[in-house]
């Protein structure tokens, strides 16, 4: 399957990735090749087959009680933040 440059721009927007103009033909080509490979899946007879949900039979995602299990370590975590103020993460103004 071939993708168009326009589709690549739209996918990049959905993925929140800014592409440079010269990158668009590169990704158009390589994603088209990847979907050429993926099209081989059409060979498989999958009628009546349930999509696999977990690699191990009978395993499901565990649930735990909705209780506080970690101490407050905000100051430590925020040492990795690009910009904070008064314990809050800062981003550009969202509402004018």
């Amino acid at each position: 399957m071939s993708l168009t440059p326009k589709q690549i721009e739209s996918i990049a927007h959905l993925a929140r990735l800014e592409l440079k103009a010269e990158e668009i033909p590169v990704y158009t080509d390589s994603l088209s090749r990847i979907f050429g490979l993926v099209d081989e899946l059409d060979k498989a007879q999958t009628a009546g087959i349930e999509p696999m949900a977990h690699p191990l039979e009978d395993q499901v995602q565990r649930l735990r009680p909705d209780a506080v299990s970690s101490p407050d370590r905000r100051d430590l975590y925020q040492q990795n933040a690009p910009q904070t103020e008064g314990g809050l993460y800062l981003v550009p103004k969202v509402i004018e």
Partner: protein
Amino acid sequence: MAAQTLADLAKGLRAREYSSLELTRAFLARIERSQPSLNALITVTAESALVEAAAADARLAAGTAGPLTGVPIIHKDIFCTAGVRTTCASKMLSNFVSPYDATLVGKYRDAGAVMLGKANMDEFAMGSSNETSFFGPVKNPWDAAKVPGGSSGGSAAAVAARLAPLATATDTGGSIRQPAALCGVTGLKPTYGRVSRYGMIAFASSLDQAGVITVSAEDAALTLQAMAGFDPRDSTSVDVPVPDYAAELQQPMKGLRIGILTEFFGSGLDPAVEQAVRDSLAVWQKLGATVKEVSLPNLPLSVPTYYVVAPAECSSNLSRFDGVRFGHRCENPKDLLDLYKRSRAEGFGSEVKRRIMTGTYVLSAGYYDAYYLKAQRVRALINQEFRSAFGEVDLLVGPTTPTAAFGLGDKTSDPITMYLNDIYTIGANLAGLPAMSIPCGFVGGLPVGVQLIGPHFAEGRMLAAAHAYQRETDWHLRSPAGWSADFEPSNTGGAA
């Protein structure tokens, strides 16, 4: 002869033939010699290693040491290490200092293993050659013009060059086994859910598994013992008892039913690699195992299945890198959308972006059924075929890779040729099976590996087969020119 296996080094430590401090200094000196020529490490933690070694020596003196106390270890830089930079080989996390330890890192810390540093890898574990690392490619210690494989290329190269007797690694589509094969070392990917992934940076959550790269299968058994077990902090961790792997190593080979996969011996396999693998089968047969051919007709669809499922999960997992709470942020964003888009565009390398976009597309409205659900159906078929094969045989054996290590830059222009390197390894991830690669010979002076795949939670049986093979052969004890093990104890008479 110089000691090179973890088992021998640990024995020497407990016999007080040498101290952990001596051992740690010797391995740190080798690491220093390897940088930057091999580029196997992103971060070296020499100072804290010496502190940890001194603490290990105190435990050894007090008689409270465990089997791994004082043994040097390198962690793949995908595992969070408290207070130490954890980059996942990405510009996105190049300044990220983890506030906590991954469960696996904590287990090794509690066991008294001494961390020497963090291993280089493909960016976010996406690659098969270690060429996508933001910190530059790792070189194969057997030939610096060749790749070490990936994504755990730094871990494999480090153990091959004897920079540490073990290195942790992760495997989503072959990222432990493929580099282990190309570097001539032993690589173990346990069953999905066997080893905790808490604190291991996520790539594709239904496939990712933590494991280890060592010199021998016996060493892999020792380290699996330390790593395996239920972790309430990992929702995919499985609560299944952990057997005594050292005891399981002694399982007899007589009567073991080995299956060879028809689909792994087709076109594309280098005849010299095929010969090395067939020679290894003869070793198991000599020990009393039987060999029969089994076919998994849908297994050739592993690669296209993987390149839907893995990118889909990666696009979801990597959405957390948005330039807000941690990780790279662009300069002077004009609004929030600009902040997201430019931070991600600048922080991720091209292969990571390619996979995020592939995954975004297969999950997008109108395409989900055609791609994602279709792939998960094919995955179910492959899983069923493995299950029925294990009704007839105890282990599956085949090549780990189609060829020996390829040249740096040889496969970077076309993603498909790179992806096809994992054609034999992806199946085990899709089905969540334990698998390993052990050295089985050389092709053109480069090591190649034989792969073993077992049923769920049959690590013991698989390790026993690998151990039996390694008692008959010495491929795993060969080391690259210039990197042979050289640790000789200096403080007492006993040669290690």
